């Protein structure tokens, strides 16, 4: 019940924040704008709409996961509302878990909203609902979970700006490492090769969660791939969540 109370409160605070409102409005605006962009090509307009829609939703997920997590957590410390919670019979781990669940709920609800908006809009402009994007939206949710965990980890030990930069850096490296390995693994040797592989295995591999590029052609994700990606992503998110609980345990709250 305590964790649920914290989660509910976090969700309420998140959806009432100006940042959430701005991100949602801009995302919907860009989705609606995709039709205009699609007019610039000859016959692959529908592809452009789907690609753009998915890209916008993913960017929204990344920004929401990082900025809202960092902002809310920092606000708790800055405004000392955290004192009201930690002075209760609630462990720091329960607090982090409550925050994580609240942010996850925020992410999930926003993705559902954006997914529905996109589908309905796609129906009006292309004649199709493109429901096959929803499994990818679930993977975006998993991706967001990983970024939320990282944001909580970094914010529990650092300032908001640095936390945002680090979390964004994780996203960049997590997407960069697979392509880098693809091109350069055979060419690098010794310590560099070891470092590249360490980065690849230790940091999250977001490429596993990314099917949006094939989706417009395959119109679906194989169940085994989907389950694989989901299990990997959730496992990684929980790993980082545990790490953030450990980091926050001994953090001095001034």
């Amino acid at each position, binding site marked *: 019940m305590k964790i649920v109370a914290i989660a509910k409160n976090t969700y309420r605070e998140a959806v009432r924040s100006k940042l959430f409102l701005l991100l949602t409005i801009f995302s919907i605006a860009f989705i609606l704008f995709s039709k205009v962009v699609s007019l610039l*090509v000859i016959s692959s307009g529908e592809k*452009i709409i789907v690609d753009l829609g998915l890209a916008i939703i993913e960017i929204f997920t990344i920004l929401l996961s990082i900025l809202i997590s960092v902002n809310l957590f920092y606000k708790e410390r800055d405004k000392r509302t955290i004192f009201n919670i930690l002075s209760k019979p609630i462990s720091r781990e329960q607090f982090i878990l409550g925050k994580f669940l609240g942010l996850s709920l925020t992410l999930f609800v926003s993705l559902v909203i954006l997914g529905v908006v996109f589908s309905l809009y796609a129906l009006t402009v292309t004649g199709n609902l493109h429901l096959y994007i929803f499994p990818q939206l679930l993977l975006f949710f998993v991706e967001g979970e990983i970024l939320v965990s990282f944001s909580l980890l970094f914010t529990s030990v650092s300032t908001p700006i640095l936390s945002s930069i680090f979390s964004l850096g994780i996203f960049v490296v997590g997407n*960069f490492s697979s392509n*880098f390995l693809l091109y350069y693994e055979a060419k690098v040797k010794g310590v560099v090769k070891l470092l590249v592989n360490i980065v690849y295995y230790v940091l999250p591999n977001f490429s596993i969660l990314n099917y949006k*590029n094939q989706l417009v052609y395959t119109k679906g994700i194989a169940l085994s791939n989907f389950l694989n990606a989901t299990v990997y992503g959730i496992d990684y998110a929980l790993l980082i969540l545990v790490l953030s609980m450990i980091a926050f345990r001994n953090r001095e709250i001034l």
Partner: protein
Amino acid sequence: MRKTKTFVLYFLLIVLFLISFLFNYNFKKNFFETNEALYVFPKKTLKLISLGFENIIADFYYIWMIQFYSSSGIGERIEYLPTILETIGELDPKFSEPFTIGGMIAALQAGRLDIALKALEIGLRYEPYEWTMAMDAGYYLRKRKKYKKAFYYYEIAAHREDSPAFLKRVWADIAWKSGDLSFSYELWKNIYNKAKTNYEKEVAYHHLYMIKFEMDKKRLEPIIENFKNIYGRFPNDLKELYYKGFIKMIPHDYDGDPYIYNPETGKIRSRKRFLWK
């Protein structure tokens, strides 16, 4: 006083913005004209920095490509097309439209068949199961009457699993145009046997009839000429050629009917004529 100050500040803001806008505009004109090549990204670099957004970056890069080649006087810019398409292919290998459009721009707008073929070849490399690009290549070569090369591409297109039926017909037709009558004849026979509609059957029959006539005519006319050289006259009929050992059998048309032979001119003609060329 305060109102005046506010007005002056806003006025200054607008003026300064306009000045900066003008500078930027001039800079853009010069910069873009002299640095077109800056927008031609190496494929691996772009894929590395795409961070999982390969498709949308390919889409935008393609949209930019259309704008880049939309202005009049393509000139030297067409040279960048293969590199641009390599990058798009690397990002989104299944995205075939850029290659077909690129080929069209190179072949029809810039008049550069070599670049068009390069563009379509790149597309085929990334999407080997696509038929449209091979078909486009064949089409541009056919327009330039380069039938032998066109034959190669139409063969590729016709062999794709999901290629439309008409491509086989086009291929067979190109085979004839490139001079390979017997191969064309075999192709039309195959088309005839596998035809699913009466229309296809009819078209195939017309071609088979006329190609057989052309093949027979091509074979017979030198023999008739040879007869004349020996005997000083044209044979009375085709049977005479057979009896005198010039031919092993008397050719008939595709329906099994004898050809019409003119002993005064030594020319043969078919009983039926179809509009097929």
